[in-house]
């Protein structure tokens, strides 16, 4: 498997892998960040008891969760420039698709987190005459965050792996870097193994951080905000 070539390849192409990793982390972070924004809006719409909003979110979730992400990436890569009638970089199309995709999953995470807050809390807020907005932002969300944050961390870890699909479109991330090195060296296995080890290292570190964080959340019964 030419494993003995790994050190030499690392020495020569280390920067390529590192830059790839940078791209992977950047895409994951930006996707999850926007997904948190849109996912929150979607979750609130889903819980609004307004039929039109509920229906919209249901259809959205149905499509996004019922089709493969690779298909969605192709769809946006081909469709988004046509839809908007402008030139878009591969990166833009792929990030847009990742955000749209992650928003669906984050929406469910946030919805579950909100619903896990005791309904008595909403009732108490409403009985004091608080508006729906204030009840949501001052009472429910601060308590829901405790349920939501760990799941969001998971979503980020999933995203780190999912961005690898972007290599199909030669978007700058770790899996694409791996391909580049592969074709430069004509050695498929070493660069695959290097990329795999980097993914493992990143997900392992993230998982540890998440566990540590969760334990701290559990320790304090109060909200962290």
């Amino acid at each position, binding site marked *: 498997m030419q494993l003995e070539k790994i050190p030499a390849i690392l020495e020569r192409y280390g920067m390529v892998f590192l830059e790839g990793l940078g791209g992977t982390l950047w895409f994951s972070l930006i996707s999850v960040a926007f997904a948190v924004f849109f996912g929150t809006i979607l979750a609130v719409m889903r819980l609004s008891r307004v039929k039109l909003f509920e229906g919209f979110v249901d259809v959205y979730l149905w499509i996004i969760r019922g089709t493969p992400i690779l298909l969605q990436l192709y769809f946006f890569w081909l469709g988004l420039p046509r839809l908007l009638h402008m030139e878009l970089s591969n990166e833009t199309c792929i990030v847009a698709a990742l955000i749209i995709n992650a928003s669906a999953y984050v929406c469910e995470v946030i919805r579950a987190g909100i619903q896990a807050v005791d309904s008595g*809390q909403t009732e108490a807020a409403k009985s*004091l*005459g608080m508006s729906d907005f204030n009840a949501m932002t001052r009472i429910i969300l601060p308590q829901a965050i405790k349920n939501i944050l760990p799941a969001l961390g998971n979503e980020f870890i999933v995203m780190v792996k999912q961005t690898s699909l972007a290599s199909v479109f030669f978007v700058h991330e770790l899996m694409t870097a791996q391909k580049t090195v592969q074709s430069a060296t004509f050695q498929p296995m070493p660069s695959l193994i290097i990329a795999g080890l980097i993914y493992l290292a990143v997900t392992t570190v993230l998982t540890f951080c998440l566990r540590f964080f969760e334990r701290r959340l559990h320790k304090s019964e109060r909200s962290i905000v």
Partner: protein
Amino acid sequence: MSEASSNARRELIRVENLSKNFGKLRVLQEISESIREGEVVSIIGPSGSGKSTFLRCLNLLEKPSSGRVIFEDVDLSGKHVNVDKHRQKIGMVFQLFNVFPHLTVRQNITLAPTLEKKLPKDEANRRAEELLARVGLLDKRDEYPDRLSGGQKQRLAIVRALAMDPDVILFDEPTSALDPEMVGEVLDVIKALAQTGMTIVIVTHEMGFAREVSDRVLFMDEGRIAEQGSPEDIFKNAQNPRTVEFLSKVL
């Protein structure tokens, strides 16, 4: 309070032909009733008789299936009514306290007045401390609710409602979730509140309390107010056989 003087008082809440269904289950059936200013009204009855649902309809936490709830001459069940605004005048205390666990004792009290009534922060704090002193919780003002006993949480919930300056407070079985030794401290607070002239509607299983502090007792059975009258009428002189049967079980 005599019949004559209670009639002279302003009508605070009027309920007209109020019905509530949960699916096919008819929980409330065509109830019409009034609550007058300064009245202390206890609602008693077997479980499942609709007491809590009736109470929760008074501030529209439960939406009536039909009929009207009129609070201070405004039909709350009407369209285009800002229920939130009117709820500020209708306090509610719950069986399970529902204090806000992520806020300190003081913040529990000041949040709604500063947000919804734009009360300045320092004034809200001053008022909160005044209220906390009244119920013996002043030294807990910077604690979080997880450090409070059940009785203390319920006392906090009561002053949280009071901080909005309501015209009436609804109590939904306020002592049912408490350890027996804490029931007294909460009932004492409600009693003191009644003596200040606050209008109170309370769903309760504490018959001794209902008898002692109420101006009027409503006995509910199968979604209707089956009988009502002064505590004397109900507890000594009940006419309806269902009331007699219920009281014989609980007294």
